[in-house]
């Protein structure tokens, strides 16, 4: 089944936040944000702005009717700066004017004086100074301390990954409309309607039942609108609450990039020990997460880094410690993978380092240590593994040996270009790691004409969850999908939603929908059994016809629905689902946090232009564990899209903050995401269809986040290509591998000649992008 939105999408008729017809009297908001990353506000001069044409009001922290606090996990995030500013882009004031243009013009007239304070942009500096968001956490299996002595080889190193801008093409925004008795309807481009509702409630002081959040769809989210849609909704709602007028704010791209957080950069130290058979005996890792100015979701992201610290490998002795470090950058936040990719990069770097030193191929070490069913991972869960199945299928299907041989041939014949390859196995846990959040709800109404409306807590943001929900309804009732309408996500219909995140949205909301539909179906069957005089268990509905004991009857779906209504039986149901069997005990950092794991193996080949330092991704061929895909078109799209986003993170997407904490790559002209020419020339996705039961909806495993991590292989393939140019080269594990890093790594002697100092100091300095 095709994405149900594709009709309106291709015709330009889908409605996003900025497309909602505005109500007469709507005012427009624009934010004045801090130009300084850390300091004390000594004066704020609003006079010129207040007198600017069309300005209705300028709000600051003084105007907040609730509390000046929107922190989700930890109350450490002010809506408006009050006294201190903590990052460039922190909201200080909100101009409300008759037009968008007037609001933005007035913002330019606001003057602020800020006494500068020390700015931290480096997470290691923050850790040294004790600037931590939460106390550090350690996950541990076995005992590394005693294990080192049993290792034949031990290697240490450092690995760094930069952040990543979400670059949803629809920017953040909100539109708030007042109703009678002081209620507010909030249109928000958010992945988390309930989080928006809570943030608005805090800022305005209004109780949650007066706040209706409604979301039709997002023009992309990727995690960026999980927590960080709250600010804009809270700002607009506060203005609406005070002025009793509709207020709209659709951020410009530069406002959005400047004021919102990104994927967390990490800097990490690792130590890995192996025996002569290349089995990993021990692994120790310390992560320094760059959280930015406040907690946001950072503690949860940090937790998932720890969960995925050993990726797809069984390591009997492993200790992983993580520090969430407070810096003066916009608060970093959720991004597809949610800390998992950062954890996986480090173990892959450790394996590559060991392979370099031992003169073996990294894939030998990778393969030897893949998880097997029953293996215990460092957080105590015993896994049901498909790691070897994926690897072996990839190896035989894609003929890894012959790819390797053809690369060797090519490299022997070409001086200008060198190819490299890498394998990237992935094991990703499905569930919110915060067990409480693993619940979903659905409200299903069957109307008397036989059509069905369904509302859930799921947000459609391109991942196709609405289509999957619709499939659940149509399949459970066995009716024409055209009879089903998936409605907007609305907190009046579905309360206390978990965000659409953690790849779990289709599972949680799909299962809740299944529960609701099954309940209604049971009631329908009972009526049918009565009418047809058979046992309830003999009734079946197939393609809108009622079957009794396998024989088609004259009763059809529509008349059955009418008959049920006539009997005064409810045709509506509110379904609730909570994932069974999951738990996690933070006091010992052990448990069974994931409903299941998703596995896969990708083979990535690249070609580096050794003259110019530029490169192409030749092919990515992967075997992915879908369970049993309920929608192959949508799932393929998630794999391809996630993979390319991961490759972008590892290659050309480079966030550049200067030492003053100002973002220099602050527009699409300076922050480059993959374009159509830069993606792999070939992507092959093979389905590992498995038969065993799992907790996914219709056994169709979650597919949102796992493919992003295949992209990590691009970094290592490029690194291998550089080493194929000159085996003496040992490029730092410092992602992304931009064309700049490639060229600098290829020619250390030339850099030495140009600068008169050893090249290693320049090219292996991971913080050098901090200009």
């Amino acid at each position, binding site marked *: 089944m*095709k*994405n149900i*939105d*594709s*009709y309106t*999408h*291709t*015709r*330009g*008729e889908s409605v*996003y936040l*900025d497309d909602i017809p505005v109500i007469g009297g709507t005012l427009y908001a624009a934010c004045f944000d801090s130009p300084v990353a850390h300091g004390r506000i000594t004066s704020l001069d609003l006079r010129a702005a207040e007198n600017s044409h069309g300005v209705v009001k300028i709000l600051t922290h003084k105007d907040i009717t609730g509390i000046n606090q929107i922190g989700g996990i930890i109350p450490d995030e002010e809506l408006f700066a009050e006294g201190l500013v903590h990052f460039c882009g922190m909201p200080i004031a909100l101009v409300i004017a008759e037009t968008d243009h007037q609001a933005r*013009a007035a913002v330019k007239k606001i003057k602020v004086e800020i006494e500068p304070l020390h700015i931290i942009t480096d997470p290691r500096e923050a850790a040294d100074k004790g600037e931590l968001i939460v106390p550090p956490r350690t996950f541990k299996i076995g005992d590394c301390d005693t294990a080192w002595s049993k290792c034949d080889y031990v290697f240490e190193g450092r690995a760094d990954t930069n952040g990543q801008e*979400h670059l*949803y*093409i*629809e*920017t953040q925004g909100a539109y708030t409309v007042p109703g009678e008795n002081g209620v507010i309807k909030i249109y928000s481009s958010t992945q988390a309607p309930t989080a928006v509702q809570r943030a608005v409630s805090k800022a305005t002081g209004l109780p949650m039942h007066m706040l209706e959040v409604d979301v039709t*769809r*997002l*023009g*992309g989210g*990727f995690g960026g609108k999980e927590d960080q849609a709250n600010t804009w909704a809270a700002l607009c709602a506060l203005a609406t609450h005070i002025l009793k007028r509709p207020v709209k704010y659709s951020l410009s*791209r530069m406002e959005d990039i400047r004021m919102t957080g990104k994927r967390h950069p990490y800097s990490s130290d690792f130590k890995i020990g192996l025996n002569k058979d290349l089995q990993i005996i021990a692994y120790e890792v310390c992560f320094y997460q760059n959280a930015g100015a406040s907690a946001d979701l950072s503690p949860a992201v940090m937790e998932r880094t720890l969960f995925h610290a050993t990726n797809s490998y069984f390591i009997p002795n492993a200790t992983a410690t993580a520090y969430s470090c407070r810096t003066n950058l916009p608060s970093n936040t959720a991004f597809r993978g949610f800390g998992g990719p950062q954890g996986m990069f480090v173990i892959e770097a450790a394996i590559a380092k060991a392979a370099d030193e031992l003169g073996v191929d990294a894939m030998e070490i990778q393969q030897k240590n893949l998880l097997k069913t029953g293996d215990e991972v460092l957080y105590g869960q015993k896994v049901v593994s498909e790691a070897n199945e994926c690897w072996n299928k990839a190896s035989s299907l894609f003929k890894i040996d012959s790819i390797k041989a053809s690369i060797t041939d090519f490299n022997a014949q070409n*001086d200008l270009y060198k190819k490299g390859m890498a394998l990237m196995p992935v094991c990703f846990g499905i569930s919110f790691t915060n067990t409480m959040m693993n619940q979903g709800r659905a409200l299903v109404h069957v109307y008397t004409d036989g059509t069905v409306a369904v509302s859930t807590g799921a947000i459609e*943001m*391109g*991942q196709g969850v609405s289509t999957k929900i619709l499939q659940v309804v149509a399949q459970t009732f066995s009716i024409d999908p055209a009879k089903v309408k998936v409605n907007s996500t609305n907190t009046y219909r579905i309360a206390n939603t978990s965000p659409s995140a953690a790849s779990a949205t289709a599972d949680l909301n799909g299962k809740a929908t299944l529960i609701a539909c099954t309940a209604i179906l049971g009631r329908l069957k009972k009526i049918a059994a009565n009418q047809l005089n058979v046992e309830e268990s003999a009734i079946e509905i197939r393609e809108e016809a009622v079957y009794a004991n396998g024989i088609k009857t004259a009763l059809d779906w529509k008349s059955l629905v009418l008959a049920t209504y006539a009997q005064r039986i409810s045709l509506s149901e509110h379904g609730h689902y909570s994932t069974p069997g999951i738990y996690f005990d933070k006091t010992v950092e052990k448990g069974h946090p994931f409903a299941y794991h998703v596995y896969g193996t990708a083979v990535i080949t690249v070609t580096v232009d050794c003259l*110019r*330092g*530029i490169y192409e991704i030749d092919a990515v061929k992967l075997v992915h564990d879908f369970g049993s895909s309920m929608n192959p078109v949508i799932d*393929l*799209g998630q794999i*391809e*899209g996630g*993979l*390319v*986003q991961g490759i972008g993170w590892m290659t050309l997407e*480079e966030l*550049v903050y200067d030492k003053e904490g100002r973002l220099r*790559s602050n*527009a*699409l*002209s*300076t922050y*480059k995401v*993959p*374009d*159509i*020419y*830069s*993606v792999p020339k070939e992507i092959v996705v093979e389905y590992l269809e498995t038969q065993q039961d799992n907790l996914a909806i219709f056994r169709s495993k979650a597919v949102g986040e796992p493919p992003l991590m295949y992209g990590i292989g691009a970094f290592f393939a490029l690194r291998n290509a550089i080493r194929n140019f000159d085996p003496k080269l040992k490029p730092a594990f410092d992602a992304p591998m931009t*064309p*700049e890093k490639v*060229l*600098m790594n290829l*020619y250390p002697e030339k*850099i030495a000649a140009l600068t008169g100092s050893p090249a290693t100091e*320049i090219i292996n300095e991971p913080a050098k992008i901090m*200009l």
Partner: protein
Amino acid sequence: MIQFILNQKEISTGLPKGMLLLDFIRYHQRLTGTKIGCREGDCGACTVLTGELKNGELVYRSVTSCLMPLANAQGKHIVTVEGVNMGGLNFIQQCFSDQGATQCGFCTPGFIVSMAGYCLRETSVYDQSGVDAVNGNICRCTGYKSIERAVANIEEKLNERTKGNAINFAIENNILPAYFSTIKERLAVYHLPVNGTGNQQGNPAKFLGGGTDLYVQQHDTLPEEEIDFLLDKNNLKGIEQSGNRCILGASVTVTDILESPIFQQYFPALNKHIKLVSSTQIRNMATVAGNIINGSPIGDLTIFFLALDAHILLSDGITARELPLRKLFKGYKALNKTADEYIDKIYFELPGPNSHFNFEKVCKRTHLDIATVNSAIHLIIEDDIILSGFISAGGVGPVPIFLENSAAFLKRKQVSPEMITSLIDIAQSEISPISDARGTAMYKRLLLGQLIKAHFISLVPKEHFKDLMNA
């Protein structure tokens, strides 16, 4: 008054001529299918088509409406996604839907409109692929593979058509609505252009060509300013050859260059060079004079023409003066030009049989990106001796640089690894790169050396590559 046809509707508006077409479409006409993604021409979500009569033929181009003033729509057919909608999905939309080439959908209308432009395009000297037609459209969801599959299905369909029949074929095959057949006739009554100066009071107006740079920098203030719109002035158009001299009007676009038989003949690798310059949409708008006058240290066309030692004709409307391009740039964005002077023409000597020309550009993302460093070279070699050699370099100083000392050094030299090593040393002494978001100063130095090598490698047989690489 600006008058044009928007989809099927006649528009006559007195709104400011500098207002962006995007804002007019979305907020004044409430056609919300055209999306705002970046307002700097870098995402393509706001792509629309402009159709205009050229030599009696109706020619459609894709453009980013976020950088296009209303004035540049005068007398044209502007097509938004709503203008390609029919009852049910059209063929392009159907292909995108079938292939799952739309996920969040926000970028999708831009892709659909770009492909509509592709379907309306007659093949010319420059044979564009379907993928090339959407190279200015960014999608953050799909990873583009489903889009490639949809585009391939559309290309397959277009293979059935005969030459000179694009519009009729599109109508007959459910690709576009029937009203497209009436546009040519309807456009004929419009006068083109009105968009001379809006300035009657003698205040110095800002000159604006395609708008692709000025609107990036000043999109919030420009709409209300006095602007002299140059793009559609007839006297600023056209590419001509006079003997060995090639003369370009100031408002020649990058696409005009790409499709020029003269350029195609004299620059055999033109397609490769121009593919490195922005995107299809931007090439359809950006003018050669705009690229030069912008004064950016990394202007691609400026670098291209500097190595050809092009000259420009500056005019204030009354008097004109000639200036070598290399004398135009005084300092960062400072030009040897008065406020009321604009470029009238650009001319240069076409490469001869002994000429070797090459253009190199490296950026973070190979396409649709601003150069970290770019460079062009023009050598005249006879009997293995370089008679003259001009090299330009961008991104390595405050202005686009004509490497004078390098040019002097190259005279009467033979190509050898040693010569190239010396040349790179000289070039290094002529540049002063700084560290910025595009790269560190050290990287830019290293890169320029590599690009100079690349220039020579592109000119010699493959067996000599290794020697030169090691230079």
